[in-house]
């Protein structure tokens, strides 16, 4: 057994850490306050290779592994969750479907500019009435005269409406099977498709500098060849995309927890009460110890899931464990970290107040805590 990272993994982690602390952290407060999408940071992440990190070089990626990817997401989230989700959703939800299921032509056309970070791409699964119950897709796509005619609505879609978004891949009902069940397929919808429109950005409690929108399709028509993967394979495809996404969200959660811990640690040494730094009170130092112990725990779970994926093994259970534990852990950590800040933590100018708001989505996105338990119960044969 070997717990050492490879030289590349270490170098990628320290690149992400330097980039995050030098370029991202100083901007996080303002981006959050003004709900400003950081185009310049995305361009820099593209230049450094983060936007195509795990894809092979032939498709414009950097050819790094999942462990490196998870470490990079973690380090960026440590500085700012919004920037991290922009990168992570682009890689694991936007570009990955093309990488896994695209034809060679689709990879050249769509994946290459995404891996280079020239464009962003969304993944539209959730609908106003289909979230956890993602199989209950209402959006329909009918094949008519060699074109898919799409009608429906998608909710909460990340990266779907920026100035550099190229489009969104959506799940839609494309027909009925012989046994009467609904056939779900994934369809590629470019941004300029007539009949496809995006709402304004949602006003959000957290991840405020990330781009999340509602999508509407009214007789939106795309060519038949815009089917991603075989017809009727949509359900299986998005489940496998979400499996990988769990590693992303675990990494996001751990990064956020680490960031909150960094803030609490520094504050506890500066803040004096009753004649000494508050870090000298056992009640505070024990909180910090418990925080770091659990962060270490979550990190091991996440790295194990990422490693299993790199080894080509079945990583679904490890990824669900990691996502569930890390999401809930980030809740406890931001809560205690804010507690250590006292009243100042409630003030907007302290990063911990933003981190507290950014945390909640970690327990909701890409499978709620409850859905994670559902998945695990099933895997455990319950």
């Amino acid at each position, binding site marked *: 057994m070997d717990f050492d990272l490879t030289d590349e993994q270490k170098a990628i982690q320290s*690149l992400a850490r330097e980039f995050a602390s030098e370029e991202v952290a100083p901007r996080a407060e303002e981006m959050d306050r003004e709900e400003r999408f950081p185009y310049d940071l995305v361009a820099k992440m593209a230049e450094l290779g*983060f936007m195509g990190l795990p894809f092979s070089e032939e498709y414009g990626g*950097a050819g790094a592994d999942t462990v490196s990817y998870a470490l990079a997401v973690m380090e960026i989230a440590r500085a700012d969750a919004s920037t991290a989700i922009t990168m992570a959703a682009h890689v694991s939800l936007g570009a990955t479907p093309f990488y896994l299921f695209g034809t060679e032509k689709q990879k050249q056309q769509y994946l290459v500019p995404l891996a280079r970070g020239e464009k962003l791409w969304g993944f539209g699964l959730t609908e106003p009435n289909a979230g956890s119950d993602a199989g209950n897709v209402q959006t329909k796509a009918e094949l008519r005269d060699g074109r898919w005619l799409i009608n429906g609505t998608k909710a909460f879609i990340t990266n779907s409406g920026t100035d550099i978004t190229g489009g969104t891949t959506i799940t839609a009902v494309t027909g009925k099977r012989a046994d009467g069940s609904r056939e779900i397929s994934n369809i590629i919808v470019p941004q300029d498709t007539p009949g496809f429109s995006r709402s304004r950005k949602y006003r959000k409690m957290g991840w405020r500098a990330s781009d999340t929108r509602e999508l509407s399709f009214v007789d939106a028509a795309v060519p038949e060849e815009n089917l991603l993967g075989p017809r009727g394979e949509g359900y299986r495809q998005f489940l496998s995309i979400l499996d990988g996404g769990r590693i992303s969200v675990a990494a996001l959660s751990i990064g956020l927890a680490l960031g909150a811990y960094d803030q609490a640690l520094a504050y506890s040494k500066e803040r004096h009460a009753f004649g000494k730094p508050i870090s000298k009170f056992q009640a505070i130092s024990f909180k910090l110890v418990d925080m770091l112990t659990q962060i270490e725990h979550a990190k091991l779970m996440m790295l194990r899931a990422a490693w299993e994926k790199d080894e080509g093994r079945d990583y679904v259970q490890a990824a669900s464990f990691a996502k569930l534990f890390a999401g809930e852990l980030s809740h406890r950590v931001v809560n205690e970290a804010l507690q250590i800040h006292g009243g100042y933590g409630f003030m907007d100018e302290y990063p911990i107040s933003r981190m507290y708001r950014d945390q909640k989505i970690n327990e909701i996105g890409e499978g709620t805590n409850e859905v994670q338990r559902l998945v695990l119960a099933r895997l455990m044969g319950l």
Partner: protein
Amino acid sequence: MKIVVTVKLVPDPNAEKRIDPTTKRLVRTGVETVLNPYDEYALEAGLQLKERAGGDSRVTVFSMGSAALKETLRRALAMGADDALVLSDTALEGSDVWASAYAMAKALSTLEFDLLIVGGLTDDSSTGAVPGALAEHLGLPCITNARKIDVGDGKLEVERETDVGYQIVRGSLPVLITTALTFGEPRYASLKGIMGAKKKTIGTIGVSDLSLDLPVGTSGSKTELRSFAPPPARGKGRTVEAADGVAGATSIFEFLREKKFV
């Protein structure tokens, strides 16, 4: 254009350091090794010149130091250098500036280059004497503290940073140049660079590969480190207790005047 950049591997400037009282040398265990920060600027200069010159231009990184630390140079390769050469030998231990520069110059003269770019100062020994000594041994002109370098048709123009402004210096190749920190922030090693760096070579040579006429190491050194002391610990600050704001401000002002700060 062929460019060589010298890079020293130094203990992390941010780490706490200790000197071993018996060997009078820095204790390196437990302290991470990094590229000497000044040398990252020298490397940035080299990489920019290589990009501008295009064609088959190359940047080679040269370092003298422990072979065990040579993987640290992978970062320079990830930033864009093409290859690296390390001069490493136990016979070099105890070398002072004179002996170090002599050995380095002998190794550098085995490489072909138009430009030798050297950092201005190291973070550990901080003598700043190596560049001049290298130029002397190699018989090269030496232009220090460059903030801008232009090379065209074998002609060289350098802007030198000085206390009062800058000078423009012209010269010819080959040349040794040291870079100022105003040259421009060193680049990040990109992911492509990191992934590509593992395929690049870090060569190693020893003293027996050089034709040395003079001794190196302790016996080749002309200076001797007699004693050392850690910097004095900072004393306790003075606390001003005053009845009101005016009295407090007055006593702080008096303190500043006494120290001639105002």
